[in-house]
């Protein structure tokens, strides 16, 4: 997977975030503050501009610019979290022109650890981790398996009680709603196989 692959990935994510913006915001309305779609749309629009302004030369460039821009422009909890995800992917793949499937899977494993550490979240806390952790498992096999696992993971958050993020303040009442961040994470992982 080369620089163009990663650029296509980010472009697809940007388009899908834009398309799903209202859906993500509606999910966040139920158990958060109704801004997750707007946050990510603002963030990825800024990423698009940053990548256009200074075309990246390596996969790591794409990933690091994406992460750094998201941290700076999203404005919600998902900003530092997705930012850390992409920056850790960039650091992990390193200064290469082509990334192997194994290297990407390893990078995702490291990114999962970094995002869990930043947010002090575990699997089962009803956060983006519940899509990302199964995706990392699935990626050992294939991008398809990763996408499938992330989607299943996101759907499984509906039955969970939130223990991290704003939704955690709802306690019991967070049950019965799919987590917005897990939903967007499934979108991000799914876009990999379309890139």
């Amino acid at each position, binding site marked *: 997977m080369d620089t163009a692959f990663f650029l296509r990935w980010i472009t697809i994510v940007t388009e899908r975030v834009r398309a799903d913006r209202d859906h993500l915001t509606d999910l966040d309305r139920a158990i958060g503050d109704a*801004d997750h779609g707007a*946050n990510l749309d603002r963030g990825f629009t800024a990423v698009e501009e940053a990548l256009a302004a200074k075309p990246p030369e390596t996969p790591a460039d794409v990933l690091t610019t994406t992460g750094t821009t998201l*941290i700076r422009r999203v404005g*919600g909890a998902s*900003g530092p*979290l997705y930012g850390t995800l992409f920056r850790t992917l960039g650091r992990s793949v390193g200064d290469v022109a082509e990334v192997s499937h194994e290297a990407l899977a390893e990078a995702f494993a490291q990114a999962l650890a970094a995002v869990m550490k*930043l947010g002090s979240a575990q699997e089962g806390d009803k956060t983006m981790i519940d899509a990302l952790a199964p995706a990392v498992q699935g990626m050992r096999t294939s991008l398809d398996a990763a996408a499938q696992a992330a989607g299943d993971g996101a759907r499984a958050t509906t039955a969970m009680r939130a223990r991290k993020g704003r939704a955690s303040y709802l306690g019991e009442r967070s049950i019965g709603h799919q987590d917005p961040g897990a939903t967007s994470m499934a979108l991000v992982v799914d876009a990999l196989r379309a890139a």
Partner: protein
Amino acid sequence: MVGIVLISHSAALAEEAVALAVGIAGEDAPIRPAGGTDDGDLGTSLTKLEEAVAEVDQGDGVVVIMDLGSAVLTARTFVEDRADVVLADAPFVEGAVNALVTAQTGAALDEVVAAAEEARTIGKLC
């Protein structure tokens, strides 16, 4: 002197907490709010945090006090590559007052952090 930054989801809350702390402790040590997003909405901004830290940084270190949620995540991301900036795990308003009071005595970074964190354990009714 050690500088202090209050980062909150809400620009107004951060400003008012700074005003209260300054009202009690005076303006000898530097303290600044970093609240809301770049657009002034509810949320947090790494850029605002960076600017506030730069304003209060006199070379003796900076303590950041966060309210909740994205403020904590933004602050954590920020300090990854700043050993001279320390996050205090402290109540927002009470920690700010204690930190400012202590910073003004010329205390060192770790003492100001400790003062902010001690605010957790100081009873108000005794």
